[in-house]
């Protein structure tokens, strides 16, 4: 891409990573090729992440993912716990598990986006989607009350011992979080729904004992507890401006998003961002995920993908520091706001 040698079709995560290339005039505007028939194939929310200034630049292909709290049903049963619907119920679950020497949440936060999921959910539950959207379009700020409150709740959970010791040193990519879950040391795990496919392949026996519930409501919060965080399309495919045969490239994209592809994606354990694919889903957890996604009034894109790259880096670092009790929620929020002022110029 930098060497002016871009491929005809390339892949990104949409949003800010794709926007960078759109701004540098590297990406073909797909709008003229978008027939109504083709547009109808996509779940509308998933198209938005590949759109800039009302034009289509990237099309979702791979999977819709959200984050849910996976839990060990056998451990919950053993300690007489039920699925928490609110934060106060969740605190009760944390207390009971702690009393029985079980780590409530398994989390490997060297990876940083893993801890970020808690923060994104908390801000959404406390302030609703507006909190983030306003901060991003600069009618609000990243040190508004929901952001500080989210930091406070994370630190409250840390102080209660809800997370493993050494949480910021453990690596999600080497499975250090799931090891705790499999070894009966931890009971819950907030993770993207790609884990629906990870559990059966890593540990089919354990998979039977794992179920999930949506992130609980925060008492007095503005956000709808049906809201989710995640990505409605995962990989976005774009055509580069230098492509000699845009018609052929578009033809290939159509092929990548047709009904046959949808069936293949479902067979691989994905929820394709296409309409009419859900009937083929067999796996119970994936069906349940799909239902959650269909009922969600709003799906907040992961902050590290929704934010401009510099700001995403500050978000990931300050959130990690919150988990390590290295900074106060106010300091974290103020650092975010200061960087936002620098990036947006206001």
């Amino acid at each position, binding site marked *: 891409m*930098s060497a002016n040698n871009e491929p005809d079709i390339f892949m990104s995560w949409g949003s800010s990573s794709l926007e960078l290339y759109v701004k540098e005039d590297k990406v073909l505007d797909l709008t003229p090729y978008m027939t109504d028939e083709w547009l109808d194939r996509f779940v509308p929310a998933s198209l938005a992440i590949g759109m800039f200034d009302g034009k289509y630049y990237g099309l979702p292909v791979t999977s819709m993912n959200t984050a849910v709290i996976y839990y060990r049903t056998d451990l919950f049963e053993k300690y007489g716990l039920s699925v928490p619907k609110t934060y106060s119920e969740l605190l009760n679950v944390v207390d009971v598990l702690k009393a029985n020497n079980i780590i409530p949440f398994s989390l490997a936060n*060297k990876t940083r986006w893993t801890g970020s999921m808690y923060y994104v959910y908390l801000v959404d539950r406390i302030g609703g989607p507006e909190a983030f959207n306003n901060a991003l379009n600069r009618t609000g700020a990243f040190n508004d009350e929901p952001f500080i409150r989210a930091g406070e709740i994370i630190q409250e959970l840390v102080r209660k011992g809800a997370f493993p*010791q050494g*949480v910021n*040193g*453990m690596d999600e990519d080497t499975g250090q979080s799931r090891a705790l879950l499999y*070894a009966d040391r931890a009971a819950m795990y907030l993770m993207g729904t790609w884990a629906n496919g990870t559990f059966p392949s890593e540990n089919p026996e354990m998979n039977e004992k794992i179920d999930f519930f949506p992130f609980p409501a925060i008492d007095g919060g503005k956000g709808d507890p049906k809201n989710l965080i995640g990505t409605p399309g995962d990989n976005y495919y774009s055509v580069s401006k230098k492509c000699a045969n845009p018609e052929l490239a578009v033809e290939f994209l159509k092929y990548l998003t047709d009904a046959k592809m949808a069936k293949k994606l479902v067979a691989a354990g994905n929820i394709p961002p296409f309409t009419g694919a859900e009937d083929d889903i067999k796996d119970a957890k994936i069906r349940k995920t799909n239902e959650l996604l269909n009922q969600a009034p709003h799906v907040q894109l992961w902050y590290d993908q929704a934010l401009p*790259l510099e700001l995403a880096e500050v978000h990931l670092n300050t959130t990690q520091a919150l988990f*390590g009790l290295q900074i106060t929620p106010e300091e974290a929020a103020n650092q975010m706001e200061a960087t936002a002022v620098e990036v947006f110029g206001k």
Partner: protein
Amino acid sequence: MPLTIHKSSYRTGVKNVKAFIHSRRFVIFLFLLPAAFFCILYLVAPIPISAYYSFFDWRGINQGRFIGWENWKRLINDRVFWLSVKNNFKLVFFSLITQIPIGLVLAALLSSRLKGSRIFKVIFFIPMLISSVAVAFLWRYMYDPYFGLINSFFRLIGLERFALDWLGDPAVAFYSVVVATCWQYIPLYMIIFMAGITSIPEELYEAAKIDGATSLQSFWRITIPLLWPTIVNAAVLVIVGSLKYFALIFALTGGGPNHASEVMATYMYVKAFTEMRMGYGSTISFSLFTIAFAVSVFFLYITNLRKKSRW
């Protein structure tokens, strides 16, 4: 007669060219050419180029925007950059006081005719043969707070309070990384010192022995002074290596938690390739070069001074 003159001068010309082609200098030049070409292209040229890019706001795509000294002003006020410089110098310090002495002691032990020294030579050299990312994996599993070898060991012998959060605690993470780095690099210096020790004439030790010197005395009075130039060179390698160190830190902590183990190279990587700010990344990398260059020149200068004053 101009033609003959021309002819003869042509002949001597050919002779000269022939002599030149067969001269030692030309052959050396010819054989060095390919290596020099790639060295200049990939190692030397990027230095001035990165200095040039440091004056641009550049995303790595298309053309950058010239912004004068903006990146440098930003760097001077960048708290995280200075933290990473501090960490780099801490790494230099700890590497110097561990890698060189331990490497030296191991080299001395293995060079003496200890039983089984050949086997230990091979065993001690293994860390050097493993790629940094694999070393990082190894240490990551050893540092695991719940299932790791280190914490399990401390719990087993009842020293629960030493079972730390090795990579997650910002006060400890940097030192955990230093330990892994030293483990990986001690064998390199061990081999360098062993090569140095072999070149020390055996007669000196024999003479010392006859004069009644203990082996410790001959280590201090013979091995160390004769090995001194090698030690200085090794120290320069340690200093420069520690200042530009990247791989193991990046793989173990990524410079985290929240910059606690950040060094200049990891910070440069994040700025240039994660945040796609190539201009600012170049500013960091050129400062890295300047600092490493200045420190090694300074070090060589003071060690030379010492040598002169001794003679």
